[in-house]
């Protein structure tokens, strides 16, 4: 095998070690600087994403506050913390939004769910998922309007035993070839509605 790289510098083991160490140090330094420089813009972008997704599910005419400001932290039935964003109008809670998580075909599906003060779904969107492209990704509002079917639903509408996909005797459509994904989304939203029912007082208490 021919070696293409020729150098006039001494090629002892110390040189090799210093070379490799030097490159690694340089790379680490570059990455540290890049992380520092981009940390703030990336955090800003994520905040914008949060605001954008909140404004997608929360109608703007029911609140006069900054949705992302002053979120409330509650714990769900499993003991995990839930960050609740509140829509306020004249100091009264008119709606709440929080993330719910479903177990999809290929990992967690994160959704944002917004409810009005009576517990009706104002809107819900998928924030992140790893479902099969072309199959399970129809849960994204950009690809299919399936997710819009939840608007106006509540824990009693449809009744509890019909809160499922059609294959399980429920109300909601599944996709051809993908049942696990919509089933996970339906369950996650139902779980979110149950969370609302269990924590209604705290959720609707006007902020101090």
């Amino acid at each position, binding site marked *: 095998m*021919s*070696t*293409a*790289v*020729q*150098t006039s510098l001494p*090629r002892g083991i110390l*040189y*090799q070690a210093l*070379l*490799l160490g030097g*490159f*690694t140090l340089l*790379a680490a330094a*570059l*990455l540290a600087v*890049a*992380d520092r*420089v*981009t940390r703030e*813009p*990336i955090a800003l*972008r994520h905040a*914008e*994403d949060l605001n954008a997704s909140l404004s997608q599910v929360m109608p703007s005419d029911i609140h006069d506050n900054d949705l992302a400001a002053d979120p409330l932290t509650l714990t769900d039935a499993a003991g995990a913390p839930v960050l609740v964003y509140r829509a306020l109008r004249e100091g009264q809670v008119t709606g709440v939004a929080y993330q719910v998580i479903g177990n999809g075909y290929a990992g967690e599906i994160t959704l944002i769910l917004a409810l009005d003060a009576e517990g009706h779904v104002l809107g819900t969107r998928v924030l992140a998922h790893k479902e*099969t*492209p*072309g*199959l399970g990704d129809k849960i994204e509002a*950009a*690809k299919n309007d399936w997710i819009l079917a939840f608007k106006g639903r509540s824990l009693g509408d449809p009744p509890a035993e019909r809160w499922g996909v059609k294959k399980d005797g429920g109300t909601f459509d599944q996709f*051809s*070839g993908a049942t696990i994904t919509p089933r996970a989304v339906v369950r996650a939203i139902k779980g979110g509605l149950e969370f609302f029912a269990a924590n209604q007082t705290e959720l609707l208490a006007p902020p101090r």
Partner: protein
Amino acid sequence: MTDAAKPQPATDWGRITRDGLWGNNVILAQALALCPTLAVTSTATNGLGMGLATTAVLVLSNLLVSLLRGVITPEVRIPIYIVLIATLVTLVDLGLNAYAHELHKVLGLFIALIVVNCAILGRAESFASKNPAAASALDGLAIGLGFTLVLVVLGGVREVIGSGTLFAGAAQLLGSSFGFLELHLIPNYRGFLLAILPPGGFLALGFLLAGKRLIDARAAANRRRQASAEPVLS
């Protein structure tokens, strides 16, 4: 491969381009980078996104490796290339996330996959470490575009058979002015799941590989026939 110590022949730009796009195509000829290839090509748009992101990294990594080829010793070259490529990809990832966030949302998944694309290390090792910077950058571009081409074709075939659409989601990747690319070819198509799942990727790739062999064999037979007719051409 030629020894770099010898005087280098003039760079054959046309040959580098042809090799990258077809003759020495990463997927069709070298059968490298099959993991990201099969993973992302469920639609033509995904293939295009992965291809373009990979091309950008390939050009940069080839350029960098070529410029540093006098400093890096053969004994430690592989770990250094890996550090360089991983750093580059991470920088691109951070930069896109901070300053081109919409694009990052679409490409984010692919960018992380580029680090494990062995084709990039392969080009650094077999081309950029032995050739001058401009030729290496062109090689990166040609190889990257050849990769993109195969990814788009593979994604397109799987998408049309699997879901009856072509370039679905292109507006999200390229901006709304590219919405015209999104075609719904077969109305009320029920979908053919196999084509979208990994086995469909293997099948489609198999047909593509066979197709290249067929075309190359035809071309070689043509050349032989011409050569026997006109013995001037060797």
